[in-house]
């Protein structure tokens, strides 16, 4: 147990190291991406450029630059932005993290409950008009671009029908910290997270439906019915038990990538100061340290979530713990 945990941690560190090297190479070692010119600004004299190069360490060999960058990012945490001079990058990311976390938690709540209801309903009523309707709705949700949906939601709730009783409660765009006002927090996040969840509901309901229908053909389901279990128990207890593995692995990855900044479009559209919007700003201004920090932050989340999903797998399916895949 301890050995496998240690090897797992080792793997995670290796992956994070690999990602950091890759990201560093892309942004710092690519020809033409000379950060000095960007910091110095347009039309700077060669002396100024030279001074900046020495100051930021761009005249040193790449491995040294890499180590210095990582040290500043993870150890001393005093990496500063190239654009807003003097602004520390790491605290900025950590400040944005709770916003993204709240948004994604809400969205996950919506998409898990929504897809469970839709997926189970359409599997139970397969080939009926309800099933077809739900699957078409799912497809629509799946194919609707989140930024467009977000803008439409904003248009309707912020301006067109804002003064009707339906949307009077909708607060202006932006984020309210939970510590400041729990109610404000909830109302501010409700529409953005629902918008974010829509496409996931569609995808997850479809996945769950097909997995559930496959599982219901298994021999063990027949046994459950031979035992005298009623339909509710057979579907929800036995059927879900067999079919939620791929659902959970999908969920783990999506959840992690959203936490890591994958909710970028939603955050930008709804003006949520989260990690995604931070990444967006950093990209827009080519603020290399900030990009570095947000990408590393995302990588860490995805890697950790992967490990958690694997652990959960072993808990849910004892065959995996012993390295026996399949049956």
């Amino acid at each position, binding site marked *: 147990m301890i050995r496998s945990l240690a090897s797992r941690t080792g793997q995670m560190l290796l992956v994070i190291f690999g990602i950091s090297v890759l990201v560093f190479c892309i942004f710092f070692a690519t020809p033409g991406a000379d950060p000095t010119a960007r910091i110095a600004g347009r039309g700077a004299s060669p002396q100024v450029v030279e001074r900046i190069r020495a100051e930021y360490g761009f005249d040193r060999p790449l491995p040294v630059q890499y180590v210095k960058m990582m040290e500043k990012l993870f150890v001393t945490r005093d990496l500063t932005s190239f654009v807003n001079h003097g602004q520390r990058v790491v605290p900025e990311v950590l400040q944005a993290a709770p916003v993204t976390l709240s948004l994604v938690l809400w969205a996950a709540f919506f998409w898990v409950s929504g897809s469970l209801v839709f997926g189970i309903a359409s599997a139970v009523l397969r080939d009926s008009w309800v099933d077809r309707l739900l699957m078409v709705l799912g497809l629509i949700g799946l194919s609707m671009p989140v930024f467009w949906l977000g803008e439409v939601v904003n248009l309707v709730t912020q301006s067109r029908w804002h003064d009707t009783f339906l949307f009077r409660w909708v607060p202006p765009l932006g984020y309210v910290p939970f510590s400041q006002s729990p109610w404000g927090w909830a109302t501010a996040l409700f529409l953005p997270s629902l918008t974010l969840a829509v496409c996931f509901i569609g995808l997850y309901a479809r996945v769950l439906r097909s997995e559930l229908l496959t599982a219901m053909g*298994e*021999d*063990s389901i*027949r*046994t*459950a*019915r*031979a*035992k*005298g*279990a*009623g339909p509710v*128990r057979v579907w929800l207890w*036995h059927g879900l*038990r*067999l079919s939620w593995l791929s659902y959970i692995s999908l969920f783990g990855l999506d959840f992690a990538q959203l936490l890591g900044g994958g909710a970028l479009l939603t955050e930008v559209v709804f003006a949520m100061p989260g990690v995604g919007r931070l990444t967006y700003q950093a990209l827009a201004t080519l603020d290399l340290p900030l990009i570095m920090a947000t990408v590393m932050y995302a990588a860490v989340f995805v890697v950790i979530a992967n490990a958690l999903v694997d652990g959960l797998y072993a808990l*849910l*399916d*004892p*065959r995996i713990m*012993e390295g*026996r895949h399949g*049956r």
Partner: protein
Amino acid sequence: MGADALLKLHHLHLELPDGTALLEDVSLTVRRGDALGVVGESGSGKSLTAMSVMGLLPGLKASGSIGFEARELLGMKDREWRRLRGAGMAMIFQDPMTAFLPVRSIGAQIDEQIRLHERVSRREARARTVALLGRMGVPDPEAAAKRYPHQLSGGLRQRAMIAMALSCGPALLIADEPTTALDVTVQAQILTLLCEIRDSGAGVMLITHDMGVVAQTCTHVAVVYSGLVVEQGPVAAVMARPLHPYTQALLEAIPPLDGPRPDALPSIPGRPPAPDARPEGCVFAPRCRFVRPDCAVRPALREPEEGRRVACVLYDA
């Protein structure tokens, strides 16, 4: 076949929604303390018969009658039938590896069945599970109950399956090829277990394609061919003097244990008809060596001798 018939199928007919008949006419009787072996080739409808008794075939149209303990099962509400499944009648499946839910311990699955039918606490249910597993000859039953299906050997899994089937003391136990997936030594143990269950007063319906298993375990036998019961009677009598040409051919196809080895094992020419291409008359006629003109009318199941029934024109009085 007196009043103590536990299960009585009478002209059971089963068809697909498109009208293809899967079972034409299955009539058989299981009494308490009896073990009825249902034999037939693959696709003859043995398993379908078992599944329709359990009511596990939604989407198929059944007609005729399934009498169980003086109750009629066909047309019964699913809720009531469900209460019988597992408690009044239980089923053992062919492959215990896939029949158990792979992601829960076998103890939890047996507990579940007990708690589905009786109001007992988890602790009591587990105590009964462990006792049952012990009675089925599972070594260290307490630890075995905590194990997952893939961690047990095939024989232990099937014992656990039987323990689960017996957990609510069913009057009828249906075993669908319970030993097909097991090796021969384990098969013998499982069959002994089935004999003990029969001796304890339950009715057993054993589905198999193996005449040897029937001879070893059962008191009665019903031969199914292409969705029809063609012969039924006590095992000893049927084995000694089979009446129906199909049964005769089946028994001839078993290699003899002693005496001179035959040059070629007799086989039955042709193949069983598909459900949608059954002959109008006797279903076995195209392969029968005694076929004659009046086989064109399907013969009814008659009782030429006390306790023996056969559907063949040869025995029409």
